[in-house]
């Protein structure tokens, strides 16, 4: 190949200069290939991608904090971002009801990875009835987070094999932080007597959390925010709160607060605080990172249910 020979000849001439330049660029942290473009559909996945990818990943998150991931509606600008992505990370397990339609209609250039679907099947929670619907809120279990971080590491490595070491180190460091968080959370919740581990929340988002720490969950709405509670179900919940003398009910950061307000009115219990169910908190909320979000949820739950 003529081009190849020409390059070889030029290389011979320029090699020392190029080497010197490359060395300078490497020292300055530049000159590396452009970052991998990762587009995420949740704040949690954005954090994982950023932690694992480090400087080699440019992460754009489309479903911002406070936006309902169940009913997110991508704008034309979002779709352009998706088409241009190298890797698209979705929560999967049916959380993004629109995902199949979206992928089929835009045909993104990069790979679309539904992280939840790629988790080991034994970790999934299936709800009884309604065709064994899977609970898509997998990130509330730290074990799932560790799997997800490893999945993201594998995806980034596939996109850029030469940086495998970097991704591996980053994933390991992130994993250590997550494991420490898990130990902390287990110790906090251990102070709560098992009889008090009852979670009444706006929608069914804490199944994985409940499984890890032995809580019973009593959601007002179903797995998706789309599923409507009916009057009879709310009435049953009111009876349950009275009967079991549950101390607190939790609102969710991104939910319609009216139903919870009525439940509080009716039962006279207090609001245990606001939990982050569908993602991280917005800037300035004190729950912008996964660890902060998780600590917030654990402290709110333990604080409210342990009280006198």
């Amino acid at each position, binding site marked *: 190949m003529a081009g190849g020979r020409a390059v070889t000849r030029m290389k011979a001439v320029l090699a020392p200069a190029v080497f010197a330049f490359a060395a300078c660029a490497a020292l300055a942290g530049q000159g590396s290939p452009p970052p991998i473009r990762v587009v995420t559909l949740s704040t949690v996945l954005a954090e994982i991608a950023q932690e694992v990818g480090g400087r080699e990943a440019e992460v754009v998150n489309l479903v911002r904090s*406070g*936006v*309902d991931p169940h*009913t997110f*509606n991508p704008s034309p600008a979002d779709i352009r971002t998706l088409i241009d992505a190298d890797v698209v990370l979705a929560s999967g397990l049916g959380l993004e009801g629109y995902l199949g339609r979206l992928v089929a209609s835009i045909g993104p250039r990069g790979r679309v990875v539904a992280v939840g679907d790629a988790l080991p099947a034994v970790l999934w929670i299936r709800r009884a009835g309604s065709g064994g619907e899977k609970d898509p809120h997998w990130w509330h279990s730290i074990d799932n987070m560790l799997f997800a971080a490893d999945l993201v590491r594998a995806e980034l490595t596939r996109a850029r094999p030469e940086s495998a070491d970097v991704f591996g180190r980053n994933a390991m460091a992130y994993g250590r932080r997550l494991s420490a968080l898990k130990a902390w959370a287990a110790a906090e919740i251990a102070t709560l007597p098992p009889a008090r581990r009852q979670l009444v929340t706006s929608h069914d988002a804490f199944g994985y959390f409940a499984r890890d720490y032995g809580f019973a969950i009593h959601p007002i709405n179903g797995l998706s*925010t789309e599923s*409507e*509670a*009916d*009057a*009879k*179900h*709310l*009435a049953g919940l*009111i009876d349950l709160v009275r009967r079991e003398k549950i101390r607190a009910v939790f609102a969710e950061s*991104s*939910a*319609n*607060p*009216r*139903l919870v*307000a*009525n439940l509080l*009115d*009716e039962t006279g219990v207090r609001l245990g605080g606001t939990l982050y169910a569908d993602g991280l908190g917005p800037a300035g909320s004190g729950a912008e990172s996964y660890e902060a979000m998780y600590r917030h949820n654990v402290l709110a739950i333990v604080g409210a249910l342990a009280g006198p």
Partner: protein
Amino acid sequence: MSLHDLLIAPFSYEFMRRGLLSAALLSVSGGLLGCVLVLRRMALMGDALSHSLLPGIAAAWLLFGTSTVALFFGGLIAGLLTALGSALLSRLTRIKEDAAFGSLFIVFFGAGVALTSKLPTRLNLADFLFGNVLGVSAADLWLAAAVSGGTAAVFAVFYRSILLETFDPVFHRATGGRGGLVHMGFLTLTVLNLVAAMQTMGIVLALGLFLLPAVGAYLWCDRFVSMLLLSIGLALLGSVVGILLSFHAGLASGASIVLCLGLVFLVSALFSPRYGTVRFLWRGGAR
């Protein structure tokens, strides 16, 4: 299931009592207002008006959260803008009021849907369009009471003007009645009632609580007073049965109230002794 479980037990919950009371209060004002809407052929206008409330409610939610007062004023402003805007358009351009109304309300509705897709907190659009008896707050109930009482008072005070303007607007205006004012008054009352009914019935279904009892009553009555009273009665019946149905069958509250009222309407349309379909066909189509 005992009769107690069927009829009484559901109302041992505060939220059910609130839903029922709010629907009952609005049955009174809606029953009154519906008769005028039906007789003045404003039924479809009311429907359009209900859709136009959405952007006001969405904007209020965006700026002030779930406060009932904010939602009320948001909806009120959007509804009045639609009503006044189409009245102005029909006077200042060549388009007629129905076309102006039809155009404005759909623009407003579109703006509302666009706004709800931009809301930072989760807003269940379905809750606003179709209502949710589970979310009726004490403030909603006070609002329903105020609007219902206000509407009844307006009917009591201006009964003569309303009667004249409804049945003989030409005579009413010739004798010094302010027709335009009464017309805007009706539209304002409709907006007020729609906003008050929003939480229980939803803005799309609320009009059913006003319209269906009135058309039902229209099929049975010849006198205005009896039509008003029957309309209120049917609305109350439909609300109670509808809310019980929604509880036991797990249906959305607004929809089951509308379905019960729809059944009453259908039965009236078929079997009304003087104006029903059966009677009409029995006499060979000759009136």
